[in-house]
């Protein structure tokens, strides 16, 4: 009997295991293996076991400046999407009294996602450009003489696009966490003399931390793994850790690209681990 249930359990986990091994473990293992290969100019791979790729990358100031730039973007985007995500969720959960309206408004947040990422990103160009909506509006109204160049092809436009693309990933988990908060807790806090801010700070925020952690994880991995948004929105003037990988692939330098990927993977895993250390997501989820 016991043996039989053991077998059933194994059968139940088999499909997922097979999928994970085929599409996750093997590819990642290959990337790790290739990262120790040698590169032959414009031809690609030569099997070998060398730490040269890692040494090249870690000793190259370009790598470090790309990481600094990526981490800068990650932190800014994390902060902005958190502030937006938290307050939008707060509004939806605690201020909209009708559940149907709340769900309707929530769905409204997903409307931009009916189009592709590329469209959502590119559509900022005619808004932010030198002859774009904002600049021609400001000039037309006589507020400025010269168009603002920093609106597009700048760090600003990169952050705008990231925030636009990724805020929803913050809203969804925070909304989910907040929706589980028992409303009577808030009333109790108010009855016990808490101010409005006190309720947010002492009740809502701590009880939303699972959602915040998950949202942060989404945003961090998305921003750290991106090279396309940063390239397009900065007009190629800024880079990210991933754009270093892309550049290497341009010259078929797979070994160094693989080494970059491994380093990036480690960095993201460390960040993810520290987020999970702050919040025990698993425990909170089964709560």
């Amino acid at each position, binding site marked *: 009997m016991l043996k039989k249930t053991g077998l059933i359990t194994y059968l139940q986990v088999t499909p997922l295991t097979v999928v994970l091994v085929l599409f996750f473990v093997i590819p990642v293992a290959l990337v790790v293996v290739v990262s120790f290969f040698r590169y032959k100019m414009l031809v690609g791979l030569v099997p070998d076991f060398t730490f040269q790729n890692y040494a090249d990358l870690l000793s190259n100031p370009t790598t470090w*400046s790309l990481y600094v730039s990526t981490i800068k973007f990650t932190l800014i985007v994390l902060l902005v999407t958190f502030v937006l995500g938290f307050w939008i969720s707060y509004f939806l959960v605690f201020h909209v009294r009708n559940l149907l309206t709340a769900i309707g408004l929530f769905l409204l947040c997903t409307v931009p996602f009916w189009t592709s990422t590329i469209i959502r990103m590119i559509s900022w160009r005619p808004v932010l450009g030198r002859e*774009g909506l904002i600049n021609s509006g400001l000039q037309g109204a006589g507020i400025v003489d010269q168009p603002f160049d920093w609106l597009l*092809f700048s760090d600003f436009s990169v952050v705008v696009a990231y925030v636009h693309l990724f805020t929803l990933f913050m809203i969804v988990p925070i909304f989910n966490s907040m929706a589980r908060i028992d409303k009577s807790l808030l009333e109790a806090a108010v009855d016990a003399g808490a101010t409005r801010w006190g309720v947010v700070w002492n009740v809502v925020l701590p009880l939303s931390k699972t959602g915040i952690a998950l949202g942060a994880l989404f945003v961090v991995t998305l921003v750290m793994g991106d090279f396309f948004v940063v390239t397009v929105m900065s*007009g190629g*003037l800024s880079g990210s850790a991933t754009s270093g990988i892309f550049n290497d692939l341009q010259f078929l330098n797979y070994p160094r690209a693989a080494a970059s990927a491994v380093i990036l993977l480690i960095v993201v895993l460390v960040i993810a681990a520290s987020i999970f250390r702050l919040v025990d997501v698993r425990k909170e989820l089964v709560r």
Partner: protein
Amino acid sequence: MKKAGEVTTTKTISRRSILKGGAAIVGATAITGFPTVWAQGLKDITLNHTGMSYSTLADIARQASQDLGFKVEMSVVDHPGLLNRLVNDPSSIDIADMEIWQSKVAVPQGVLQGVDIARIKNWGELTPLFTDGVFAGKEVSRQGDSPFEFIYRDSKDATSFATGKTDWANFCPGVYNADTLGIRPDLTGREITSWADLISSDFKGKTAIQNIPTIGIMDAMMAMEAAGEVTYGDKGNPTQDEISQTIARLIELKKAGHFRALWNTFDESVNLMAAGEVVIQSMWSPAVTAVRTQGINCVYQPLKEGYRGWGNGLGMLSHLDGLKLDAAYEYLNWYNSGWVGGFIAKQGYYSANPESAKAALTENERGFFYEGKAATADITSPTGEKTNSIGEVRDGGSYEERFANVAVWNNLMDEAEFLYAKWNEFNAA
């Protein structure tokens, strides 16, 4: 499976007679047997032509399939994508539409078979720019990878380049052009005459350079040499020191906000120009055409230092044999027989067989694209949108004037790996 005898027999039967209809073929079958095998076999063949977006055009495949009776399909890849396929998956390609410098990777790898020049019937009509290394009676610039230096090999299976003319080619000449800077004459506010204008402080924040290292560096070197900031022994093969100096200056310009953007793709360059974000930038000829079809005046400005030339070649992959090889030869013969030349002329490119291309154009188009004459009627793009009005003359003048002024060729320099590393620094700066 296929014997040489059959090939020669079948070659005497023209395509036209096959196309005349099933009845004739049935009749022929009754007598000999193998024309059906050939016609059927060739009909079932699919030739894969793989190359970059600007020359690997669906319209060409459509017309070729129609004219040749077998199927030609196009696969579009980017520059690294083509090298990757050539090196790692050569059997997935039949005809490689390579830039000349890419053959420097493909030929030593042994992935191409020699093209038997005797089987290219129009070889003698092809421009001496490719076949003899001379143009308009004058030796073509050897700075960079000029087509002549890489077109010949010593034997069918050679894996190196021949030093002079031989009977075997590494590739059959494809499209080519002479590139320069694109400008918005309505916004530059003054005349543009030199590559130095790309880095002139007059256009601070209003220029862009292409973010493709091997070509971007050429534009940068042309500009810096013209401005007298850096001197080069050979711009086609700069030293590490020369590359370092060039990149250092590029980084300085980038940090000072000189570049509005670095563009990676064709359409980005079109948008930058059309939206007025930049007024002078690196550009490819079809991009200029694309801006003009939007009704915006954009000029491919000839500059006194000359052009940056480039060329493509159609290479036959080693795995081709039998019927498929015959089909490949048919295709290479067709490619330079007129239709393609007429089609690509309208996006600003030239055919290696200019006479046949001219014959495929109207008198007005011929005058405008090849002879430097004013248009006598509206000029349209390959897709039919108007690009130039009556009376306008093509920038850069005639075909002869243009190619007589190529200063340097796109190339794969000896220090390419060093360049890539430095270019990454420029990107990250």
